[in-house]
């Protein structure tokens, strides 16, 4: 598989390259998770945002070119985020219920459309791209996005507002912050980042879409958010470690030694341990609904 990106500069760094290849989608989605959760919205729907991004990116990329495909994927992820926000903040659906339903919907709708658009089309088409988005673009994003987010959250007025909304929507509202608009922005941005992570999978790493291709990466990203203690740089670091585990696991396949399943379950165990042992505390108002009429 390494042949797809021989023009990559980072490919010349032998240790980093396979690790980063597995970590990119995790880093981007985990950053999305941090943005949403710091604003107080649980985003289990990361998985669905990634899958939608992967599918839309491929379809749009096939018809309108790679740039349009990437933008389409980011927009589609953002749209799924917006749906999550509307369901939870306008229709009063519980944030977890909405996330579960969105993931289910994204999985079945993309699989359904895969049948309609590709497999059963006359003549059948392949969900495949002729050219790939240069992998270096995503490698750069993988370092730039967490750093920028970290600065943005800690040093900018908008970041301060976002954190205030996540800690106490009531106080934030009394301080004159538009709680609903901040949350909308955060959840849409979260979906866009996850959508970009999905686009990486279908448009850069493998260049094709297959059913359920995200395969739980959205939940690993969620694990990275917790292990990284809701900090962009921390979550990205955790995602890098999880990516390393994944690449080790892939390289070890077929060889004797540690069973790959042990490495595959490690991110989830790390998240559970981190959730209680690191005294990793989520934003205080995480998951709490807000009164839509008053914001």
């Amino acid at each position, binding site marked *: 598989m390494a042949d797809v990106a021989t023009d990559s500069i980072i490919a010349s760094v032998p240790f980093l390259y396979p690790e980063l290849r597995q970590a990119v989608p995790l880093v981007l989605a985990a950053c999305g998770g941090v943005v949403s959760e710091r604003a107080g919205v649980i985003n289990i729907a990361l998985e669905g945002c990634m899958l939608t991004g992967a599918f839309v990116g491929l379809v749009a990329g096939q018809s309108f070119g790679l740039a349009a495909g990437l933008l389409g994927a980011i927009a589609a992820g953002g749209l799924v985020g917006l749906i999550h926000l509307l369901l939870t903040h306008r229709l009063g659906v519980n944030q977890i219920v909405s996330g579960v339903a969105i993931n*289910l*919907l994204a999985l079945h709708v993309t699989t359904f459309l895969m049948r309609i658009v590709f497999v059963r089309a006359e003549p059948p088409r392949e969900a495949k791209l002729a050219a790939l988005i240069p992998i270096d673009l995503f490698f750069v994003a993988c370092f730039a996005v967490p750093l920028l987010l970290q600065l943005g959250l800690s040093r900018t007025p908008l970041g301060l507002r976002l954190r205030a909304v996540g800690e106490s929507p009531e106080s934030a509202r009394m301080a004159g912050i538009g709680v609903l608009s901040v949350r909308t922005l955060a959840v849409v941005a979260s979906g866009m980042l996850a959508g970009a992570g999905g686009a990486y999978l279908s448009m850069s790493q493998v260049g094709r879409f297959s059913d359920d291709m995200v395969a739980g990466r959205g939940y690993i990203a969620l694990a990275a958010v917790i292990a990284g203690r809701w900090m962009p740089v921390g979550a990205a670091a955790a995602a890098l470690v999880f990516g390393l585990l994944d690449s080790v696991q892939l390289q070890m396949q077929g060889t004797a030694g540690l069973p790959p399943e042990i490495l595959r379950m490690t991110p989830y165990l790390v998240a559970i341990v981190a959730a209680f042992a690191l005294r990793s505390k989520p934003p205080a108002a995480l998951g709490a609904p807000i009164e839509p009429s008053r914001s």
Partner: protein
Amino acid sequence: MASALARLGRPTLTLAIALAIAALVIGLTGGEPLAAMRALLEGAFGSGAAILRSLAKATPLILAGLAVAVALRAGLFNIGAEGQLLVGAMASAWMGFAVKGMPLFIHLPLALAAGAAAGAIWAAIAGLLRAWQGTHEVIVTIMLNYVAINLTHLLVSGPLKDHSTLASATPKVQQTARLWSLQDDPSRFQALSATNFSAGFAIALLAVLVVWFIYKRTAYGFQLKATGEGPEVAATTGVPVKRVIVSAMALSGALAGLAGSVEVLGVHRRFLDAFSPGYGFDSIAVALLAGGSPIGVALSAIAFGGLSSGSLQMELVTDTPRQVAGIIQAVVILGIGARYVRRTR
């Protein structure tokens, strides 16, 4: 009776709307909505064999749906039914094939109990962390799903693999650990023997009765409800909230584990890797549609069981992708969604 009918109203309406949306999706993507819906319904409940197939599909959904419902009663969101189902299935399979020379009336209950116990322990981890550390049970149960998927995969492709078969599966369970099933007597039941219907369905109905009894007739049932409605208030009235949280998760996990047991002991007769098409995840929709009533869980599991087996028929007859069933399920979750979840943390 009137109130019972009223309680059926909203779920039925939601289901109808979801079916209508599915028909719309089929129509918009160039299919034939009416033919597809007819094939779906016929495949679900159109004949004796179809009904038995749907009930067989409903069997694990009833048990796993009860699991999610019991946790919700205590205000807990158990997203981990899938993982609990898998460890339960594995424990039952192991107890079923590794233990030899016991009579049926000891071996079978033992194999079922092993599944329930494994599921209970798996879920109790989340309950303990929730009660003593305040760790969100949603996070822990989600993560434990993936741990269980990998753990059972590891066991079934290595230490517990039956090397006489190419499939990733454990050896078959002993005759003495098998639930009665139509597949055991093909000459007598003819075509019906291929429906996967087993005595597991009776176990599921029994579980419905037990949960109903706990809710309505026991002090523990009251404690569950009080904890779910408000742990702070419950604590002031003397409810041991932490113990209720842990035991509710354990009870929930036991039911989910049992869902895995009946699949192993009644249908596959072994642990087959990836045998669950996501029963544990579907059970969330089952529990939400049921709206807190154990009998409702049975009804909504049968509806979803029918949907699942009917969608195969629909794909076969009208070439409509069976993922329509999943879309219907998601719409149902959203339609019914928030109403029965009292709190999230």
